């Protein structure tokens, strides 16, 4: 089973991300109910972690992992839980990624499954505030709670201070490059922004595109804004800006765009018309020097030549020389599972559902998933890291070193603000016209935020 999962991961190169599906704009339910009847022989570690076996009852799980590799990986996790608890019948309802997200409100408000997949941070809190979820402090009070750093706990806490989510997988936004190219050209990993710019200039003279970017889907540029803001103004300022407590018209916000503008000459031109996959292809073809985007690894894993994934490495965004460098904060979006309040069987299934959530919170369960998804890592600190790939091991180091984690702009702020004809459009405008009047530009953004009344 493990080998199979791994092979599936390598061959199909990991899943299509939700973003890719969004891009396709497919609106249609590709829902599929899987009734696991056969107990698959899974990793024994996962089965042990799934606990005693005294449980009995029913459980339904709703999720958006509609692509083959993650879908199978989740089924493996469910099978491990069932092997340990033969008395439990788990029904998994996998809904098409785009449909799931677009209809999340009506889904959660109608007849959702007992345990549902969702994103942490502001995106989670917005729905918690609508009473769609049941707090799971008792799950966190168990042994599972000790497996997480404070950064994860914060991301899973609602505005009311209660715990609502169990983290399941995560990945970090870092700068990817190809060691073979860098060795050949004699480049060193830049640790300061000045070094970063010097290196980028050198790449330009060497005929490389220094910083690859494909922003056709609107969201990749958000990761660039996030990291520059985190280095210039720190975690708290960024989070407060996303929540509307700080102003876009603030001089500190303007500083982010000023710094960003100084980097734009090194960016790949034509970003707005390019898919991130095509930008990633530049890195694969060794014509691009570096790229700030974790999804790059998916393209490399999908490459026919296994040597490509072996020749991929990354480093954290350089320091800006501010007091916030020490935070080492970065975007590390967390996907997790929550207990829905409106499930028709919420009360009857609560015990089993909480046991399942506690199981999802263990490293053993998450590892079954991470082995199939080579770009993701397990949030729990008891995951057996000897089974990680080199890239996964390095991600753990960088994420553990971060004092603060953010979730990515579109998860950290009001979805109405972050949308395609919202902040994504504003950032595309900035990339196209970096020389425009920054004051007027930021005033437009603030005015838009204010109009949302959020």
């Amino acid at each position: 089973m493990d080998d199979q999962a791994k092979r599936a991961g390598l061959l199909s190169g990991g899943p299509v991300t939700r973003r890719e599906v969004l891009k396709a704009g497919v609106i249609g339910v590709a829902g599929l109910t899987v009734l696991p009847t056969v107990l698959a022989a899974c990793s024994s570690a996962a089965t042990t972690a799934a606990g005693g076996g005294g449980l009995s009852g029913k459980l339904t799980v709703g999720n958006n992992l509609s692509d083959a590799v993650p879908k199978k990986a989740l089924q493996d996790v469910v099978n491990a839980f069932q092997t340990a608890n033969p008395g439990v019948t788990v029904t998994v309802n996998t809904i098409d990624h785009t449909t799931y997200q677009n209809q999340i409100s009506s889904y959660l408000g109608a007849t959702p499954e007992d345990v549902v997949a969702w994103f942490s941070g502001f995106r989670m809190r917005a729905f918690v505030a609508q009473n769609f979820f049941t707090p799971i402090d008792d799950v966190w009070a168990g042994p599972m709670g000790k497996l997480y750093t404070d950064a994860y706990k914060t991301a899973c806490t609602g505005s009311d201070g209660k715990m609502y989510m169990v983290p399941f997988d995560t990945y970090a936004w870092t700068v990817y490059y190809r060691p073979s190219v860098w060795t050949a050209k004699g480049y060193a990993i830049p640790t300061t922004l000045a070094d970063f710019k010097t290196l980028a200039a050198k790449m330009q003279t060497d005929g490389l595109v220094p910083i690859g970017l494909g922003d056709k889907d609107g969201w990749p540029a958000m990761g660039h804004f996030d990291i520059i803001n985190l280095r210039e103004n720190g975690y708290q300022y960024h989070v407060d800006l996303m929540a509307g407590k700080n102003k876009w018209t603030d001089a500190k916000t303007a500083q982010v765009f000023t710094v960003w503008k100084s980097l734009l000459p090194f960016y790949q031109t034509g970003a707005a018309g390019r898919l991130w996959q095509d930008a990633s292809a530049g890195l694969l073809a060794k014509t691009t020097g570096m790229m700030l985007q974790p999804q790059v690894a998916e393209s490399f894993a999908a490459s026919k030549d296994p040597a490509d994934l072996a020749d991929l490495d990354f480093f954290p965004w350089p320091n800006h020389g501010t007091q916030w460098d020490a935070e080492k904060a970065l975007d590390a979006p967390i996907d997790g599972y929550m207990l829905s309040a409106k499930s028709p069987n919420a009360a009857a299934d609560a015990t089993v559902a909480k046991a399942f959530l506690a199981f999802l919170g263990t490293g053993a369960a998450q590892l079954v998933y991470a082995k199939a998804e080579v770009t993701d890592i397990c949030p729990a600190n008891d995951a057996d890291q000897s089974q990680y790939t080199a890239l996964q091991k390095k991600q753990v180091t960088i994420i553990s070193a971060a004092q603060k984690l953010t979730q990515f702009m579109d998860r950290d702020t009001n979805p109405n603000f972050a949308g395609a004809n919202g902040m994504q459009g504003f950032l595309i405008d900035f990339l196209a016209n970096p020389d425009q009047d920054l004051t007027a530009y930021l005033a437009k953004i603030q005015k838009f935020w204010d109009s949302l009344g959020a």
Partner: protein
Amino acid sequence: MSRADRSAASATPVQPGESGLSGVAAKSPPSRGRFDRFPFNRLPFIGRQRWHLLTRRDKAVLALMVGIPLAIDVVLIWGSLIVDLLWSFTDWRGVGDMTGGGLGHRFVGLTNYTQLFDGTYPFFWSAVLHNIFWLGFLMFVATPIGILLAVILDGQIKGMAFYRTVFYVPVVLSLALIGIIWQLQYAPDWNRGFIDGTLHFFGYDVPVVKDLPLVGQWFRDVSRTDWVGGPLAIVPTVIAASWRHVGYICILYLAGLKSFDPALREAAALDGANARQTFFRVVFPVMKPINIVIVVITTIEALRAFDLAYITNGGRSPLELLSTLITNNSISESDRIGFGAAIAVILAVVSLVPIVGFLTVTTRGDEQ
């Protein structure tokens, strides 16, 4: 088919039922098929009591036949439009009860409209400009090209069936497919997009061209164009839409030209008119009904433009259209249903203008 055959065929329109009414069924040509066997002479309205045109059963059947589509139309189209109008005065987010308070329905008056018009939502005016440009381009560039092609294809050209197929193929393809085809042309890297790739080839690889002063440099510069991401991305996108629209108009106009009375053309020729005079002074005015249809179709195509922009980049800047703003506000993760409804109302009102104009013109034509 010669011109004479064609006009003969089109000059004797066949009206099914006509024969039965006039009692000359026996004279009708054998090609009428099943209508021959239909007992028209036994229909109630041909009986002796001519003033009783319809039996009660007929009335019931007619009421159902007209009533059901009418009810569907009223409920699904006008009903939705009214609900949409009501939503546009609220900040409803799609969840919660409809009666008010909290996350539910809250009356916000004209706020949604003021936010659109005063530039608080800057994408609105970009979208309006893009829709206007879309309309202008289709109307004044693509449509005339389609008409021109139709006139050319109407003449006696060798291999006309081939040309007609070539121009009509894009019409058969769905806009989704057309979007994907044109993405392959417009992708911004020389090894990804056909256009940039071709320019790159001339600028770097073709021996003589690449060394020409200015020209070689021009190829190299233009090969880096970001066709669908640059500020003027709407132009390449409309060109992609026109690729289909030209074929559509061409076929429509060609159908009209086929039923054009060649005697008029001959008369014009006798009077010494040249080809251009014949077209503008004789053909074009006679084709007025087709012209109106074409103007209306073009307008509606421009107003409902959605697919190409949405496939290209989800309708983000720089390709916002009114339709993509509605989608991205109302049925995405964003849940500004009231706000999206306001944009939809504006689009509906704008769309009603050409439709009402069309209906006025056509019904007036019928009365004459």
